[in-house]
């Protein structure tokens, strides 16, 4: 029941999500039965268990809900410099997504409510964000 997807049929949901992120978008699904909106990486609707859905590409912009800046980073992020791991809400929806925001050194520069956008999908750092 997919529509509007610009990706090929052979990719997995996560691969499609990553390809959309490279276009600065968040790939979502809208349940055809109950209209619940979810990230495209979910397989079934958590409200009604339906697997019928419409695929949507949302603008990857939103507001910071919370975040952290870590002194000790996991492997793969040793070269990342000081960064924030951010949870943000996507504009015009109740959806929330987490991503990697490089170049953040102090909490004073990232108040809750700051605007961010998806800028790319980094091969080792994941969903790449930038401040708007």
């Amino acid at each position, binding site marked *: 029941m997919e529509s509007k997807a610009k990706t090929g049929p052979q990719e997995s949901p*996560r691969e499609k999500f990553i390809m959309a992120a490279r276009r600065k978008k968040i790939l979502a699904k809208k349940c055809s039965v109950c209209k619940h909106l979810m990230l495209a*990486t979910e397989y079934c609707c958590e409200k009604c268990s339906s697997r019928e859905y419409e695929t949507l590409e949302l603008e990857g912009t939103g507001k910071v*809900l*919370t*975040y*952290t*800046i*870590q*002194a*000790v*980073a*996991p*492997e*793969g*992020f*040793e070269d*990342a410099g000081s*960064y924030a*791991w951010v*949870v943000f809400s996507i504009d015009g929806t*109740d959806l*929330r*997504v*987490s*991503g*990697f925001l490089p170049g953040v050194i102090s*909490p004073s520069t990232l108040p*809750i409510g700051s605007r961010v956008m998806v800028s790319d999908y980094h091969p080792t*750092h*994941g*969903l790449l964000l930038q401040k708007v």
Partner: protein
Amino acid sequence: MLNKVCVLGAGSTKYGRLNEGIIEIALDASIDAINSAGIAPKDIQAGYISNVFGVSDKQVHMAPVIMSNLGLPGVPGLTIESACGSGSIMFREAYANIAAGFYDCVLGLGVEKITHTGTIQSTTLFSYCSDFFYEGGNGASFPGLFASIARAYMAKYKASEEDLASVAVKNHENGILNPKAHVRKKITIDDVLKSPMVASPLKLYDCCPFSDGASAVILCNEDFAKKSGRPFVEVIGSGRGASSAAVQGRDDITTIPSTVAAATQAYKMAGITPKDIDFAEVHDCFTIAEIIDIEDLGFFKKGTGANAVREGSTSRTGEIPINPSGGLKSKGHPIGATGIGQVVEVFEQLTGKADQRTVRDAEIALTHNFGATGASAAVHIFKRAE
């Protein structure tokens, strides 16, 4: 109709940086629990083992190895992994099998060995317990995930870094009295605030340590416990809950739905309310977690947990003592063992073996333990047997 389930014995290694291999640690705690229960290994009909990172010490499929070394190669074992909640979630499975009548007496053993991997490798291994595609894979460590929860809580309820620090100070005061605790050191609010930043706003003393250790209990039905003639504790409530695996999936980041669900079930089964609990061992992997736990468990209204800790309501002599063992924060957090370590503390408290850290006149106690940021949780309620 479920059979009554009892805890007849309990034992634990010291928590901390241990030199022995993971199987030796596991066997030491198991023998302690067997001795505590006054049983022989042959009385054990099944083994339930909780562990997360055995692969880092070159052992998976741990249950049959442990059972074989206890002289029980023909007794079935099962290894269970639910991140930091592995112990309590394993306890629930052991409980359910006794309650259903499959066994009369089983071993519940939790074990972890992690300190040999070093801080970076440990941080990385722990990040695999998150919803990795959205969390660890985007750079979040476990302190980072709880730091993001802390930031949201502090913004919503106007809690301060001093409020968080008061949890650490209280748990260290308790842990000093626990000879098996990993970090036995008195600290002040100032010590916490001046400790190095780990993941803003959480500092070193807001975080539990990486620990090695094992804890074990003997679970049995009521007939078996009574025939032993020894002191025991009855399990009167058991609950399991789940939350969205990723923090981003929760409508309110300042509460943990799995805790609320598990606690609601356990209170209902026990036929009691939070006011009836004499003390609780809760999951304080980070100071913010204990504040959220004591609200989600119904001891304090949402948004008032920090104030309760600051005013001393959760101290060992307060209105509802929280973590008299020292908690994960001071006693330590060998993640596969932690949930069983809480049951060990309850057993020792309710059978008069807690020495200086005894909570006076306690009869009913609660344990609460979760995996990751609360994606999975279990709550159990215990009563001193008459």
